[in-house]
C-alpha cells in the first residue's frame, strides 16, 4: 500500500528514515488514512472530489511546493480548471504567518497583510464555491488568526454546508501538516548523520 508522505519525500522501503518513521506506526498509518478519507471520501455530497483536489493544488501552490502541486494535479482531470487553479495560486503567494490579535497587550504583535480576493477571469473559471473556498484557504494558510464568523458566513453564502466547511477546513489544515512533514523529512533525508 502506497504512502503519500513517503512518496513525496522520496523515502524508500528499508532506508534509515523508513525505519525512523516506523517508530510512529499509528501516525504513519493515519496520516495516510487522513489523506484517503479526504480524497477518496465515502460521500461527495458536501464537497466533490474535484473541489477537494483543486483546493489541495491551490494550498500546495501557496506553499510553492511544485512536487506536491504535481501530485495533486493528477486528481484534476479538467485542464481548464487545472490552469485556473495554477493561476490562482501563482498570483496569491505571500509570506506568513501574519494577522491580528484580540485588542490588548498582543496588539503590539499585530502584523498587517492582505485579505486575498480572487480576481476575474480566474474567479469565473473557478466558480462561486471554489473561489470562496480558495479565499478562505488563503487566510487559513497565511493568516489563520484573523479568522472570524463572517468568513464562515461567506462560505455559507457561496453554497457550502456546515459539514462541507468542516471538510474543507480539515483539508486545508491537513495539507498544512502534510506539506510540512514532507518538507522536513526531505531536508533530513538530504542530511544524513
Amino acid at each position, binding site marked *: 500500500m502506497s504512502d503519500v508522505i513517503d512518496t513525496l519525500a522520496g523515502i524508500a522501503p528499508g532506508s534509515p528514515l523508513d525505519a525512523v518513521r516506523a*517508530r*510512529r506506526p499509528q501516525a504513519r498509518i493515519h496520516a495516510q488514512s487522513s489523506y484517503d478519507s479526504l480524497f477518496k471520501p465515502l460521500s461527495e455530497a458536501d464537497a466533490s472530489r474535484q473541489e477537494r483536489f483543486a483546493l489541495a493544488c491551490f494550498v500546495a501552490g501557496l*506553499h510553492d511546493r511544485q512536487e506536491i502541486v504535481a501530485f495533486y494535479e493528477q486528481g484534476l482531470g479538467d485542464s481548464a480548471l487545472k490552469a485556473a487553479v495554477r493561476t490562482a495560486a501563482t498570483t496569491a503567494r505571500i509570506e506568513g504567518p501574519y494577522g491580528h490579535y*484580540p485588542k490588548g497587550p498582543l496588539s503590539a504583535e499585530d502584523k498587517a497583510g492582505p485579505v486575498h480576493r480572487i480576481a476575474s477571469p480566474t474567479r469565473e473559471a473557478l466558480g462561486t464555491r471554489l473561489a470562496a473556498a480558495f479565499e478562505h484557504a488563503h487566510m487559513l494558510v497565511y493568516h489563520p488568526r484573523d479568522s472570524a464568523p463572517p468568513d*464562515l458566513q461567506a462560505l455559507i453564502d457561496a453554497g457550502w454546508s456546515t459539514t462541507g466547511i*468542516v471538510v474543507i477546513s480539515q483539508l486545508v489544515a491537513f495539507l498544512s501538516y502534510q506539506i510540512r512533514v514532507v518538507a522536513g523529512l526531505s531536508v533530513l533525508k538530504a542530511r544524513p548523520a
Partner: protein
Amino acid sequence: MNDKVLSVPGHVEPVVFTRDQLDWLPWLEPMAEQDLTARHMAGLVDAARAKSPYFRLLVRDPEVLEARTRTDKDIFYNPDAGLPRAERELAAAATSRYNGCIYCASVHARFAATYSKRVEDVDRLLAQGVGADLEARWNAIVATSVALTSTPITFGPEHIDTLRKAGLDDASIVDVINAASFFNWANRLMLSLGEPAAAGG
C-alpha cells in the same frame, strides 16, 4: 438545511497567551449528542469527547476526525524512542505561539510546563514569543518549529545541524518535525471554527 453561523454568547475573550484553562466556543453548529451514531462515536475515538463542542463539530466528518486523532496521539504520546514528551509539547506550544493560536498554546504550554518542570521558560515563551532565550536545546526546537511553520517553509539543513548539536538523534528530529507540523493542522481548525473564552465565563 440549518447552515448558519452561531452567535457567540457573552464571554471574556483572552487577550494574552496563558497557561490557564480556557473554553472554546464554536461558530458553527456541532452535532447534537443524541444524534451521534456508532460511526460518529468511532470518529471521536474517546467517548468522553462527545461532551466537547469542538469534537462534535469536527465529527461531521467522522473518518477524517478519527484519522486526525490517531495521528495526534501517536505523535505526542508514543513513548518509544525519540523526543521526551515535554519537548514534543514545547514544539506544539511554540508553533501555536507563532501562528497566534491562544487556545492551543494554553493547552500545550500547560503540558510542556508539567512534563519539563521548566515553568519559567514556558512562561517566557508565552510572554515574549518565539524569540525568547530558553537555552540551546529548547532554542533549537523552537527555531525548528518556527521554520517549519513559516510559509514558505524555511526549514533547512542548518536546523538539522543545530538540533544534532543540541543532542537530538534522527528519531527525535522526526518527532520535532511531526509535532510542529501537526500543530499547523490543529491551530488552523481551532482558530477558524470558533474562539477561546476564559473558563467559566
